[in-house]
């Protein structure tokens, strides 16, 4: 999966430990961005045809192609919008309540 690496974030102790203005070395993600999701997309691999409609339409780039020509989700960045489930012509994706999903 193509996925940004989460780097360790040391909470600054003093104001001078912050960068000068909101700029920092590129590719340095300090936190996942999925805290607000209520429903998460779950794919039924047996139904998925590998058409990649969801892959193209996910507004967060949170869907990756897998080696077996199917898809997988990056749950660290998926915001749970449900676009993929809505767009899948084969109903291969269902939106499952976060606490019910394993």
């Amino acid at each position, binding site marked *: 999966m193509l996925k940004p690496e989460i780097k360790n974030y040391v909470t600054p102790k003093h104001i001078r430990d912050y960068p000068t*203005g*909101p*700029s*920092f070395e590129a590719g340095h993600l300090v936190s996942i961005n999925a805290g607000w999701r209520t429903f998460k997309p779950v794919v039924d691999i047996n139904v998925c045809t590998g058409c990649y409609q969801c892959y193209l339409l996910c507004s967060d780039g949170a869907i990756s192609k897998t080696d077996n020509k199917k898809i997988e989700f990056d749950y660290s960045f998926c915001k749970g919008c449900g676009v993929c489930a809505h767009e899948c012509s084969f109903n291969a994706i269902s939106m499952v309540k976060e606490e019910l999903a394993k």
Partner: protein
Amino acid sequence: MKTQMSKQKVFISGDEAVALGVRLARPHVISAYPITPQTIVVERLSEMVEDGSLKARYIHVESEHSAMSAAMGASAVGARAFTATSSQGLLYMAEGMHYASGGRMPIVMMNANRSLALPWSIFGDHRDSLSMLDSGWIQVYVEDAQEALDMTIQAFRIAEDAAVLTPFMINLDGFILTHTYEIVDIPDQSKVDSFLPVFKTPNKMSLEKPKSMGFSTSPADNMEFKYQQHKAMLDAKDIIHSVDNKFGEIFGRSYGGMLDSYYCEDADYVLVTAGSVTGTARIAVDNLRSRGIKAGLIKLRYLRPFPDEELRAAAGDVKAIGVLDKDISFGYEGTIFTNVNSALAHLSIRHVSINFIAGLGGRDISIKDIEGIYQDLEEAVTVGKDKSFAKVRYVNMGVEIDG
């Protein structure tokens, strides 16, 4: 103000003085949209770029919002950027101005102070820049064309200082300064080059060291970045003083840093001004002094950062303070008055302080008007002991008003 004569003197308008100052500062990028009464600045700069006397990229944009955005883009790759605007144009930049200050991009901008619509007016007052007082830009107000040129050069050095990295707005009163002609001393390019170091910023886009610029923050970090911006603006005060002193050493002119006081040492009545009206007020003070009245004057040069300590030191033991505002914050009073009173509130003594709203939409302010202000202050001290008096007064209103 200390002055020293030199040979390179020219007879130019305030706008032209700014353009010459910009050329001396050697910016890489100028992006601007013309608006009266700023137009001459950008006309001259585009001519300089065309004739090759200024090696910069001039970006013709379709609006002020784009002018500010392009200046930010330039600053983000480590280029020295300049823009200029006025009035409605400044307001159209408003979104970008907060962006630039939050992104710590030391862009320098000239603003020709002009009234805000409606009623439509191209004439001067301070309502445009004062409405942007909270945008995180350093704001200086100049008195004449020479100061306009000199501050254009100083502005880059102050804004780009590593401890500051904050954008800088130079305010010139529309028409009164932008379009009147004065003799201006033009500094040597070589001296300006030695005064103004090459722009370096930690926030630079580059292929060698890619940066993620202008990121978002969660509530866990946002406040720290805002504090950091505030701190840089407060720290700018020391830099403003040292840069002004250094400028004085090299060019023979300095301006007093945060404010300039005139006859304040023994003054009973002090008027606080900003911008070109200070010149008129100096004459009024001279007249009053010759009649034995202890009048003094404080020109607030910077309104952000605000010269609170300097103000307390200069006006600590006077009998009454007047504040001349070319502005009303509708529903309250003049904005400079509010700021001055807040600074004075830290003193143990309570001053008689009166706000004089004047010059809105280009209304003239004469020497006589200012002498009248000092008379009001004198009367308020005598009368104020047993009677309340109007705290906010309107100079030169054309009609009678209640209260």
